[in-house]
Each structure stands twice: as structure tokens, then as C-alpha cells.
């Protein structure tokens, strides 16, 4: 089972990386969702797989009687799932807002902070050479 699970994790990771390399921010977002699933699985599997024995202490006992599943990675994954969800919700809002403001979800067309014209970048960013008074700053043109 472990070998198969590892291969499955590899497939999920590969697809999520391929999606995250896309310039479409929505596809990037899908990649993010898949990646957090894959990572959760890795953490979970890292605590070893135990079938049919949840980490519970029976009534009357002070510790689990038989061997039970590893509780620690479960607690970590629980936290990770919730945080992953928070990350996704925020990123989704960001993509949404970006589309409303810029009218695109193509990351190559989001150029306010890093303009395509390299010279403009060098001069305005690094404070070198003569600043062009006609194009003083890069952020103001888009009005945000």
C-alpha cells in the first residue's frame, strides 16, 4: 500500500506543479488545492499507516490498550487542512479582485509592479541612472 500511495502522491504533485506553472491564475489556484492535498497525504503517511484502530482511549483505561494509529500526524494534518483552506480562500479572493481590477487572470499581463520595459524597471526600482520625469513611478498609471 505504501508504494502505491507514494506513487499516487507523486501523480497528484506532478499534476499540481503542471497547473501551477500555467499563466492562468485559475489553473494556478487548482494546482494549489491539489498540492495541499498531496502534502497532507505525505504528512499523514509519514506517521505510518495503521488500519482500523483510531487513536482513542477506551473507558476505564489510562492509555490505549492495543496498538492504535499515530495521533500526532493526524493533529498536524488537521491543522494543515484548515490553514490550507484559509490560504485557498484568500488566494481566491485575490484572483477575483485582480480580475475585477485588471480585467485579466493571466499572470503575464499583471505588470504593474514589474513592467515589461526593463530599463524602466532598472531606473525606477534600483534608483540608478537618471529617472525619467515623463514616467515617474510605475504604480500610478493603473490607478490603484
Amino acid at each position, binding site marked *: *500500500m*505504501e*508504494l*502505491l*500511495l*507514494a506513487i*499516487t*502522491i*507523486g*501523480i497528484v*504533485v*506532478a*499534476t*499540481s*506543479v*503542471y*497547473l*501551477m*506553472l500555467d*499563466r*492562468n491564475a*485559475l489553473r*494556478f489556484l*487548482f494546482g494549489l488545492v*491539489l498540492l495541499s*492535498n498531496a502534502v*497532507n*497525504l*505525505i504528512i*499523514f*503517511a*509519514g*506517521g505510518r499507516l*495503521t*488500519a*482500523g484502530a*483510531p*487513536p482513542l482511549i477506551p473507558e476505564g*483505561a489510562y*492509555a*490505549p490498550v492495543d496498538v492504535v*494509529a499515530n*495521533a500526532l500526524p493526524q*493533529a498536524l*494534518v*488537521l*491543522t494543515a*487542512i484548515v490553514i*490550507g*483552506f*484559509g*490560504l485557498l480562500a484568500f488566494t*481566491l479572493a*485575490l484572483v*477575483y*479582485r485582480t480580475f475585477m481590477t485588471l480585467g485579466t*487572470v493571466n*499572470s503575464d499581463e499583471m505588470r504593474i509592479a514589474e513592467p*515589461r520595459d526593463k530599463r524602466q*524597471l532598472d531606473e525606477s526600482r534600483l534608483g540608478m541612472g537618471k529617472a525619467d520625469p515623463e514616467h515617474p513611478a510605475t504604480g500610478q498609471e493603473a490607478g490603484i
Partner: protein
Amino acid sequence: MTDDYPKVDRVMGGPAGWISIAFPAVLFLYFLGLLPQIVNGPQVHGIDWVPSLGVRFSVLLDGLSMTFALLITGIGTAVTLYSARYLGQHPQYPRFVCYLLMFMVGMLGLVLADNLIALFVFWEVTTIASYLLIGFNADSAKSRRSALQALLLTGTGGLVMLGGMIILGNVAGTFELSRILQMGDMIRAHPWYMGILLLFLAGAFTKSAQVPFHFWLPNAMAAPTPVSAYLHSATMVKGGVFLMARMNPALGGTDAWFWILTIFGGITAVFASVMALRQTDIKQTLAYTTLMALGSLTMFIGAGTHYAIVGAMTFLVVHSLYKAALFLMIGIVDHATGTRDATVLRGLWKAMPLTGAAAGLAALSMAGIPPMVGFIGKEFMYKASLGLGGFGAIWVTVMIFAASALMFVTGGIVALKPFRGELADTPTPAHEGPWPMLAGPLVLGALSLFFGLVPGVLGHYLVGPATHAVEGEVHEVHLYLWGGVNMALILSLLTFLAGWLLYRSHESIRARLAAFEARNPIDFDAGWDRVLDGFKAFAAWLTGLIQTGSLQRYMAVTFSSFVVLVGGTYLIKGAFGDGLGLATASVHPVQWTVLALIAAGSILVVWTHSRMTAVAAMGVVGIGVSVIFIMFSAPDVAITQLLVEVLVVVLVSLAMLRLPYLPRRSRASFRAGHAIIAAGVGVVTTFLTLSVLSTPFDRRLTTFFETASYPEAHGRNIVNVILVDFRALDTFGEITVVAMAALGALALLRGTARKKES
């Protein structure tokens, strides 16, 4: 220069002024009181500073550090007294005092430190204070440039030196100088000796402005005059000389040491003397004579014989006395006449007799004329150079002869010519300076005469102990004014003759030097600008290369690095086979199905160009994962995963109402490069997971939670207990993250609503 600011009414600089004068004066008296003990032998005191790194704050009191400490505090008193009058009404005078005292503390720490790391820290303090002081007239672009140049050059040298210190500390097994200095033979024989030496000298040469790092020093004259007098002649630039003298018992005495120091020192001395003749601004002339002095000191520390060290230590004191006096004198002249141009100033003697007297005493010492102490310094340097063997003797003698003759000329230019003859017209009518400004130069000039007349005092209290410290062993030191007719005396007389001849024709020499300089293509200062420009262009090029502004590129670089670094480690370690032995026999058909569903779902997300299909496929993956959680005994995780998965699908679907469609899939939309990177990351992740799973498992933590869960936290669901009890802070952090994400999303979404309304 000093008159074009709004004046603030302060008597002698106000409280800041009084404090700044009292501080060095009290310390000077304190060190003077310690002097008789130190003459008998060095002392080490200290406390641990960073014990884990072996850094101690310890002071080494020996002749060398005492000589420097007395110069720093003594000249410091003269300079602060002078500044209180010179700059006391400047609006930013208190700030100036802060910088100056910061420098003074740094310099004292530098010379007194017994720990290499502490020495480095104080070394950097002087660099930073020097930067602030050179750039004190911050509204002048020239000041700012000079300040930055000095900072970058001496700062870089300091960092290089730190490398040398760390290597030396490792070689010697200690950072305590008092112990390192005992290990000279071991260090000199060590294979890393050459590296240590070069790194140390990089620091010393930049700080003490040896050619080819000399150009920052003349530029540093952009600082107010008291600063030039203090930092850039008497104290800070001697930091490098101090370091070489200090390290002499550990690093000195080898051929490399001898030749590097004598050659660089000699070239610096003569080059600087010639450049001094070229200048018309007296302050610039003096700046170059300082370079000459630093070159000579370097040369003689390199020469390393007993007489050379005695000569160097004598000249160190001699130079500090006369150079500080001359700089302060120039400040008075500048203040009184409004110019520092050697071709304009004439006949100041009648208007400024006291200034003239101070200048005369100092210049006589600089020219090395008896009975001034400068004569003794020069005699000992000649004696030392003649005592060297072979080519070294010729080289050092020629260099010191040329430098001394040129020094004679410069002494005449700065202190004789401006005071002789008829009073010339100057921007403001010449008048005598006030007493706080005159006190320093007069006392320093008088000391030059006093030590010349009573050389035994200088020899017994300062030069002797300092020589012991530099040589690392005790030799008798006897300074004298009259040593009989010998080769050194004859050379001295020849020096005077050559100097007098040169002085008579120095104006035509200056004109010729100016013409030569105009044609000379080698300009270190311009070269510095080119180096900086090149550096900036390189930074811009590199930034353009890395910061392309394309998110895709960043992601590709990040993922490729992961593949190359982790995959490469696997290749090197040959660890790919680690997890392949894990049994696959006991896989239940249900498990097969779930895993196949997860894989198929994620592939479908990539494959589809329909947003809804993608969202549904993501849901399949998520639910598949939660089924795995259920199968392997994690019901709580599975429930959470299910809830979150539903929420994700709902949220993304909601967003889809507004967001654009995915682009249609086409042959062109497949990216082979991306697929390769993605496959690489997938494969490496699989192997990583397998490696983790095939490593023996350490259950200690888990056992702790299992046994402590009920007795300590009274809970039977161990996962819950961990979340709300043992790792409650973690959970609190998690809640905070989610709350922040919600707030952030809210802010983003509210912004859009308002925008639409308007």
C-alpha cells in the same frame, strides 16, 4: 565654509561642548596616571562578552596601546576644544559631538582591545563614525560622495580583514591577542600564513590609505577641519598602522611581510609627497603629506629591525603632534581669511603671530630640523634604513630620502610661505584666532619642541614601551638629539639641501605636475567611479535576469531547483532504491480503487478546459483523500477534510460566476518543458515519501501523547487532546491565520463592491 549657516547662540558649544571637552580630557589624565605602571610591563584586563563564541571584552594595556590612547585622548581634547569654538554655533553641533565621541570611543576600543573580534567591532565603529563625520556637511554632494567612498573602501577592507581574523583565530585556537602574539613562530610556519597576512593587510592598507587605496583620504578632506585634523591625520588612518604594528610579533619578520610593506609603503610615501607639491589648497597638501607619513610608517614596520621600529614609533608620535597642529592651524587661517589657497596667502605673520608660531613649530618638526622632535624621528629612520641589508637598504633609504626632502618643501609651503612677506588681500581681512582654537596647535607645537629637547622622556614613557610591544621582546631604547657625525646626519643635511633647492622652484614644479596630471590617463578616483558604475550595472543586469516579472518563470525556477537539488542528492547518495522494498501484496481492492480515483481526478483537472469539470474533479481528489483518512484510522481528519472539500467546491463555484472561462485546450497549450519539470517534481516526491516510509520509525513522541493524554489532560480522543491541550498554542495560531485570511479576503472583496458603486 563655516559661516554660511544660521547661527545658534551657544557659549563654547553649550552643554554638548563642555561634555565633549571633558570626556577626552579626563580620559587623558587617567591614561597618563596609568603610564608609569605600563612602562614596567603590559597588563590585560577583561570580562566575557559572548562566551559561546569565545569573544571577550578584554583590554591589552601595553606601550603601543598606551601611546595610541594618549594620542587619541590628548589630541582629542585639543580637537574638541577647537571644535567648540569652530562649530559651536552650528545648528547641528550636538550631533557633530555625538559622532566625534562615538569615533573616540571606537578608536580607543580599537587600540585597547585584546580580542580580535572586539577589535574588529571597534574598527567598524570608527569606519561608521568617519562616514558620518566626512558627510557632516550633508547638503553638499561632494561630501556625501567622499563619505560613501571612504565607507565602502574601508568597510570592504574591514570585512576582508575579518576573514583573516577568523582564520587566525582558528589557527591559534584563541582570539585573545595577548596569547596570539606569543605564537608567532607557529603562525608564520602555518600553511595558511600567507592567506592570513594578505587578508589582514587588505584591512590595514585600506584603512591607512596605502596606494592603490589611497584616493579616499584626500577626498575625506570634505569633512570639517577639526575632523580632518583628528581622524584623517592623527588617529583613524593610523588604525591600519596600529594593526600592522600590533600584529608584528605574530605575522611580521618574514620575507613576504618585509617586501609587501616596504614596497607599498615606499611607493605610497613618495607618490604622496609628489602629489602634495601639486596641490594649491593647503588642506589638500596636508592630506597628501599624511599619506606620506602613513607610507613611511608602513615601510618601517615592514623593515622590522630594532631601529626601524624605534624610528616608526618615534615618527608616529612626531607626526601626530605636528600634523594635528598644522591641520588646526589651517582651520584658523581659513576661518580668519576665508581662503586656503597657497598661491594667495601671504604675510599673515603680522596679523596672526600666534597662529604663525604654532605653524612654525609644527612645520619645523615636519621638515625634520633640529632641535625639533621631527629631527630625531628622521635620524632614526635613516639609521634604520642604512642598517638594512642588500637591496632593501637602498630601496628604503632612497624612498625615505625622497619623502623627507619633499616633506621639507611642503613644510615651507604650508607654514612658511603664507606667513612671510607683505600681507596679501584675502576674502576677509586676516585676524588672530580665538584662544580655544589656538590652544591646541600651540600646545602640540610646543610638545614637538619639548620632546626634541628632552628626548629621554619620550623614549622612556612612550617610544620604549611601544617598541617593546611591537617587537614582542625587550630592548633598550635610547633616543637622542645629537648622535655625532655619522651617515644619518650627512643624509639629513643632504635632505635639507635638496629640500631647499626644491622649495625655491616649487611653483614651476607644481605647474609641471599640473600639466602632467592633465595628460595622465591613470586616475584612481575616476576609476573608483567606473568600478561602482560597473557594479551597479551588474546588479541591474542580474536583477533583470532573476526578476523577470513573470510568475511562470519564478515557479519554474523554484520547482526546477527542488528537482535538481533533491534529485541530485539522491543521485550522489545512490538512494533511489531506498523505499522500493515496501510490500505491495496486501492491497485491498477498495484501496486500489480510491488511489486510482485520486490519480484520475488530478489528471482530469489538468486535462479539462471546463471550469466545472475541474472543480468536480478536485472534489473527487479531496473526497478520495478523506476516504484514505477513514481507512487508516483518522476519522476526525476525514470529517474535517470532507467539510473543507465541500466548502472549497462551493467557494470556487461561486467565484466562477464572475471569473472568465478557462482557455480552450489546444495542441499549442501543452508545454513540454513544464511537463518535464512537473514529472520531475512528482518522481522526486514519490522517492522522498518512500525514503521517509522506509526509515525506522521513532514512536517516542507518539507514546508520550498516548500515555499522557488521559492522566494529564483528561481526554480519551488523543487527536483532540493534542489539538486543544498539548499543542493549544498551535491551534490558536491556526485560528488566527484563518481569521486573518478571512479579514484579508473581506477587505479585497469589499473594495470591489465600492468600486462598482462609484
